[in-house]
């Protein structure tokens, strides 16, 4: 069993499909993730993100398609692929019998990796588990259990780290520590695949993103390019007083009132400028208190492609 990744992409998914009770949850997904990338899998609840991860890691059996991890087929060469992957599942699952330190040592052994006390200690300290290292799992708080799960995914030094909603329900401190740590291990060559509901995090962290909806990939691109596709910017104008209607000449900017007409939101196309809107408002004698422009974000891309916001609420 090789511990070293081979040439080729870190993860290559071809025509992956999976159904449960006649419902297709992963529908002909194909993705290619290069070595050293931080890759985001985004999508509303039920989009098929976790099932895709389960198919990659072997927790679920695929019905069609193939998965290659650093060139190894995850069915034929399952020992090699699993050795190369570290996964943090979305659900908190812990074996209550063992304390943190010993559990990490056991997990390292499961992957055929001799215990490295220095690395184990580094994980424990970085993730703030130091004071709890001798505690049994059932005595840890929810946040600490999630920290342990991150450490567990990393203890055998995987080349491909998969994080399924790693920051769901964790405090700001851990979130920051976790992303710093992810950035650090990426620098050392680890490829990272993550799912998150926090689109700002994905926008900051990911080199590329695949957006999934109803089991299908609806977009794959670099974060920058995805955002570029949304050409419209938003102009938000706070007026001196409430106005029920804006001049008809502003109709092309798709005006929308907020706060009983005190605030108006305008949508600007690629060739439209904020100044045009402001000029019309001035000429109509409307006093302007404050102005804000908003560039498109991943959230806009997400809404545009899925019709849902990151919390899964319908937005179209």
């Amino acid at each position, binding site marked *: 069993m090789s511990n070293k990744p081979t040439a080729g992409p870190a993860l290559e998914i071809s025509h992956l499909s999976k159904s449960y009770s006649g419902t297709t949850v992963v529908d002909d997904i194909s993705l290619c993730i290069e070595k050293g990338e931080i890759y985001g899998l985004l999508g509303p609840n039920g989009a098929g993100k976790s099932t895709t991860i389960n198919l990659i890691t072997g927790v679920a059996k695929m019905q069609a398609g193939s998965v290659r991890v650093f060139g190894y087929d995850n069915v034929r060469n399952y020992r090699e692929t699993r050795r190369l992957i570290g996964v943090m599942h979305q659900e908190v*699952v812990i*074996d209550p019998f063992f304390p943190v330190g010993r559990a990490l040592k056991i*997990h390292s052994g499961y992957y*055929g990796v001799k215990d490295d006390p220095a690395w184990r200690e580094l994980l424990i300290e970085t993730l703030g588990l130091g004071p709890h290292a001798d505690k049994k799992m059932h005595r840890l708080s929810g946040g600490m259990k999630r920290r342990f799960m991150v450490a567990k995914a990393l203890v055998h030094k995987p080349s491909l780290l998969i994080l399924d909603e790693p920051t769901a329900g964790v405090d700001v401190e851990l979130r920051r520590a976790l992303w710093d740590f992810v950035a650090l291990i990426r620098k050392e060559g680890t490829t990272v695949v993550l799912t998150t509901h926090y689109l700002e995090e994905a926008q900051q962290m990911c080199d590329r993103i695949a957006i999934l909806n109803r089991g299908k990939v609806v977009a794959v691109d670099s974060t920058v390019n995805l955002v570029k596709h949304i050409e419209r910017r938003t102009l938000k104008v706070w007026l001196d007083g409430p106005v029920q209607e804006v001049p008809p000449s502003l109709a092309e900017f798709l005006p929308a009132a907020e706060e009983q007409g005190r605030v108006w939101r305008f949508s600007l196309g690629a060739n439209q400028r904020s100044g045009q809107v402001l000029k019309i408002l001035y000429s109509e004698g409307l006093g302007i208190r404050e102005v804000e422009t908003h560039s498109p974000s991943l959230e806009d891309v997400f809404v545009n492609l899925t019709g849902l916001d990151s919390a899964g609420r319908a937005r179209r």
Partner: protein
Amino acid sequence: MPYFLPFWTLLNKEVQRWFVSPIQTLIAPMITSSLYLFIFGLSLGKRISVGTDITYIQFVVPGLVLMGVLNNTFANSSFSLFMSRYLGHMVDLLVTPIGPAQFIIAYTLASILRGLVVGGAILFISCFFTTLPLHAPWLAFLMAGLASFMIAQLGIIAGICSDSFEAISIYTTFLLLPLIYLGGMFYPISILPSFWQGLSRFNPLFYTIDGFRHCLVGVGDAPIAMSFMVSGAISIVLFLWAAALLSSGYNMRK
């Protein structure tokens, strides 16, 4: 090392798991067996004849030892697997390079070890109540190991197939205990009417209990060779069944 270490780690963990709860895994069965020895050995046993050269307490000790072995082996393999699935941490094993063969051998060995340790402890306690003739002790040890192997496979099957505590208790209450109690643990089947004697010979645990007793105290209803053959054949069938379940990922890989 890359193949052995995952297996060794799993085996070690499974042994530690029962070793860290000695009251439940060791002390409780020893106390139960001591009560049986007191009741059937020192009180009722004096009034019961089994029609052989040995006393009733000498007859019943091998049955009690093997009952301890079988119950604890089954409890270990079935509950460990079931609880891992029930609590969800089975997923931690499913994503590791541990293959089905390593998995089944580690769970089996950890369970056999627990069964034999408990059996040994009961045998030790029985020394305070009686002295056994010790007919063929190494063969007896082999039979205890074989019986334990057989029941470990049944435990693995139960642990995989059960989806609730109720389901797993069905295996214990409606399968294992009746088979143990009706397998000649407390009586020689030769004292039964011919119909029940014939029926008892369809009980696979009769061959393990009788064979173990035959090896240990030199008294049995079936030839030792036959006991080994039947127990071995059933062990192989159960092992293949458990291996097929594990390899297919039944009830484990979604």
